[in-house]
């Protein structure tokens, strides 16, 4: 139930996958919205605090997800997928993970640029490590925005590819991430 099977993802992998999807979409929207808040907006202070805290939690979730991926490997690609499709899927998945960590690292470098820690909902603090680089907050800010745009674009492509496989090729690629085995090929 919890573990991945040969024909579909298990409950834990699915939960982690959809949790990351929801968090990334939320953090992206929140980030774009919060930078345009005015000084007297009630969310001016809380929105960035929520964004940072959630980002740190997302990082922990992703580390757990990668660990679980090693303990319980994902189901192998569908036999109906061409070699180039498998390679493209693998490359996209690796790039998604890479971009996720790069976006989080750049965000961390903005908030810790002067040595201040990141407060995570009053639960704990992530201390600054790399701080005081020339123009650190501004550069990290630009990198954070553009990598986030890249990440969400690639995630969109990833979703479109899954939808294409599910509804055009009818091979059940998306079903595997929704708790159902793929349909037998027609």
């Amino acid at each position: 139930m919890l573990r991945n099977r040969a024909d579909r993802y298990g409950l834990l992998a699915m939960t982690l996958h959809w949790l990351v999807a929801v968090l990334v979409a939320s953090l992206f929207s929140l980030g774009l919205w919060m930078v345009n808040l005015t000084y007297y907006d009630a969310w001016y202070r809380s929105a960035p605090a929520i964004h940072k805290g959630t980002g740190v939690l997302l990082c922990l979730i992703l580390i757990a997800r990668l660990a679980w991926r090693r303990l319980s490997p994902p189901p192998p690609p569908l036999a109906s997928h061409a070699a180039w499709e498998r390679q493209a899927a693998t490359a996209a998945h690796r790039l998604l993970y890479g971009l996720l960590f790069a976006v989080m690292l750049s965000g961390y470098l903005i908030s810790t640029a002067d040595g201040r820690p990141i407060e995570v909902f009053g639960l704990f603090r992530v201390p600054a490590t790399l701080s005081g680089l020339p123009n650190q907050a501004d550069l990290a800010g630009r990198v954070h925005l553009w990598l986030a745009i890249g990440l969400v674009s690639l995630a969109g492509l990833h979703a479109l590819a899954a939808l294409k496989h599910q509804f055009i090729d009818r091979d059940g690629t998306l079903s595997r991430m929704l708790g159902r085995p793929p349909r037998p090929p027609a």
Partner: protein
Amino acid sequence: MSTRSRLSLPLLFALGAALLPGLLPGSAAAEVEQYVIDTEGAHAFVQFRIKHLGFSWLYGRFNDFDGSFSYDPEDSASSAINVAIRTASIDSNHAERDKHLRGKDFLHVDKFPTATFASTGYSPNGDGTGTLTGELTLHGVTRPVTIAVEEIGAGTDPWGGYRRGFQGETSFPLKDFGIDYDLGPAAQVVEIILSVEGIRQDG
């Protein structure tokens, strides 16, 4: 080596003759003292303060600037000063706030990397204070400003140089310079505090 050997003696003499007068101190009778602001030794500060919500003063400064001034002890009214400030060097001791201050809501440093002040006149009050007028260019807007000046002191330093220093204060509404981000009714006006020490160049 071969390039160097082609520099003939007459050419060296000509170069020397052209350069030396500028290097020799006191080669021209200096009536007005010329100073370079000691940013190298950080004996000069461009600081600002603005009220936070009307509850307290927030202080910051610009770390990167340079300038020079002239001063005539016989006729201090003829004094003049020019300062150029790299706006990206704003420092309010908070990286995320400084990032915001450098952005479009405030200084927009990508578009307006330099702020300048060029004096147009000085009226000494005769008691060691005076009023400096000039043109401040900030955020792409040039406007006249008036700076209240206190002449702090002047004299030889312990290392063979001669120094002269001033303190200046002025204030203006940020929106005069097209910075209209709403910081609240109590934070319309920014105060600028300038602490300037110059090292004499022509002594």
